[in-house]
């Protein structure tokens, strides 16, 4: 683990460093381009900090070991890309249902299927939200710089522990394989999971406002019952009653929805009543930001809006923007964030600039802006 200071490294390595700063206790993963550097780096560094490193036989085993690790009391993580992320979906749903804090890094590449393993894409945005069966909400963050690969990894752990839920760091090959300066501060703020107090007996339900029950470790003597089946507050399986399903699933969703304000995060520039607001996220948002800056310097009233937390989406703010401005979504995929943005801003005043496989230049984005506003 690196000392506080400034470094010039790859996004994936910064992610690994962020994880260690956040208190990573167990990493389990399986190699895949373009995410492998996260594990390659941790294989070497994590043991020095006392953390356990495991290369598993596949991605299903990886996410499973991560969940086991979390219940042993450790902060746990895995990193993968599209094909592996698809394989993990069943057990991500299990983590949601059992309220297991853990971080899943998806360094997106150009899909579908094996696609182009070294090329960036953001075709997993909707998958990160809906890839597992059943009703659930999830938190996902989309970094656009090496510094954010570090910072957002830390925040992913914090959100995960805070809300006792899996968090997806939705990176892309652009930002994962990019090298930039980034700074490890002297102090990194970390959040630890809620632990049971003497009085707690329910670890799967709560009447507290934040909807987050306390979580003990295995081995503490609570006779824990953890199950991915529908269950009551004490963990007892209930595979039939309407009430159990209704209460559990609604609370799990509320845990994210009712805490949106605390979770949401975005960057914006000149979005109030601009003629056109460009929405973008991940690596491609860099040239988009550059183009917006340029357009503004050239006197156009153009705004820039970038969700940093992509799920839950900053829907209220996007709706506001959509009311006052035309919007252009720029993304590295055909479907990406499109349905959600359209839901928020409507389809009438929405332009799309979707580009597959590679990042446009500032110039190219600028031209698109001109096409639209002229």
């Amino acid at each position, binding site marked *: 683990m690196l000392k506080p200071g400034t470094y010039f490294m790859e996004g994936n390595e910064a992610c690994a460093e962020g994880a260690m700063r956040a208190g990573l*206790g*167990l990493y*389990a993963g399986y190699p895949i381009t373009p995410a492998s550097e996260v594990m390659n780096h941790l294989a070497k560094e*994590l*043991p*020095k*900090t*006392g*953390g*356990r*490193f*495991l290369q*598993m*036989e*596949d991605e*299903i*085993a*990886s996410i*499973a*070991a*991560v*969940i*086991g*690790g*979390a*219940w*042993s*009391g*450790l902060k*746990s993580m895995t990193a993968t890309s599209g094909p592996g992320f698809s394989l993990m979906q*069943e*057990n991500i749903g*299990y983590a949601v249902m059992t309220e297991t804090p853990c971080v899943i890094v998806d360094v997106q590449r150009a899909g579908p299927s094996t696609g182009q393993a070294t090329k960036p894409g953001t075709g997993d945005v909707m998958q990160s939200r809906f890839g597992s069966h059943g009703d659930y909400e999830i938190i996902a963050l989309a970094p656009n710089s090496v510094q954010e690969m570090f910072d957002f990894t830390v925040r992913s752990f914090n959100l995960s522990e805070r809300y006792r839920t899996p968090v997806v760091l939705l990176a892309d090959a652009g930002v994962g394989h990019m090298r930039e300066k980034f700074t490890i501060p002297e102090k990194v703020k970390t959040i630890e999971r809620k632990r049971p107090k003497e009085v707690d007996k329910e670890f799967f339900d709560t009447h507290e406002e934040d909807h987050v029950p306390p979580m003990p*470790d*295995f*081995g*503490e*003597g*609570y*006779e*824990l*019952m*953890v*199950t*991915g*089946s529908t269950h009551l507050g004490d*963990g*007892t*399986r209930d595979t039939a009653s309407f009430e159990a399903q209704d209460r559990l699933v609604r609370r799990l969703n509320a845990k994210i929805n009712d805490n949106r304000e605390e979770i949401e995060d975005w960057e914006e520039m000149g979005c109030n009543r601009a003629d056109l607001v460009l929405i973008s996220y991940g690596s491609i948002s860099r040239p988009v930001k550059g183009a917006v800056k340029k357009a503004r310097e050239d006197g156009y009233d153009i705004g820039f809006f970038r969700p940093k937390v992509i799920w839950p989406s900053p829907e209220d703010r996007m709706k506001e923007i959509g009311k006052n401005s035309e919007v252009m979504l720029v993304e590295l995929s055909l479907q990406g964030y499109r349905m959600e943005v359209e839901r928020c801003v409507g389809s009438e005043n929405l332009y799309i600039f979707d580009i597959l496989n590679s990042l446009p230049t500032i110039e190219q984005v600028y031209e698109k802006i001109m096409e639209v506003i002229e």
Partner: protein
Amino acid sequence: MITTKDIRNKYVKNYPSAFCPGCGDGMVLNAMSRAVEKSGIDQKKVAAVSGIGCAAWIPSPYWKVDTLHTTHGRAIPHATGLKVGNKDLEVMVVSGDGDCAGIGGNHLLHAARNNIDLNVLMINNGLYAMTGGQVAPTTEHGEKTLTTPYGNPSQGIDICNVVKHSGASHVARWTTYHMNELIKEIERTIDIKGFSFIEVLSQCPTRTGKKEGLSGVEMLEWYRENTTKNKEEEGIYVGEIQYVERTELTEEIYEQISKRGGKPR
């Protein structure tokens, strides 16, 4: 002398169970409880991990230890994370034949290869009971099940043999008829550092039983008559199949950590 009542009070909850009358799964729970009691280990440190299926319900929600009832086939990798996360836990895995050797076969193979210190009980009732009695990897060639109405075109696997050759320290087979031996064998797995695997042939009077017209009692009798503790004799061998000492994964990992100056949290 410890009676059933003591065992029930100390180790069992949520009974009566959802198991059918005469099901072997309750007998396994009985055996596990007595083994833990005998071994003298701290019940708080016992963790039971299971997948999905009738057998997977044995610990969850019935066993009074920490239980992790996971997804179908994935008990072993979940258990791996738990064990590597905290090596002081005594991690038991309880899994059906379909769960463990069917969908979960790859994890079984690699956990055996890693020789990680888990104690795996595979409850073999020869089919997929919970979903209604479909063919399993343990079903014999030609046998009729719900999905092999014309006889199983495939063949059953001797999973103990596979696990043995994958690198496990300890492999054994018993049946629910062999309660005393089973208890002793489970107790042994607790002592053994390394991957322990016990196949337990166990009756499913509802699915197999119905098909073959056998009751739970008759199936236990069948076990008695068709098993042998003598490897040379005909019949299904029960007893120890493998015991060797090999490097164990968790220990290796902890050692690497302390060698690199890390302190396992």
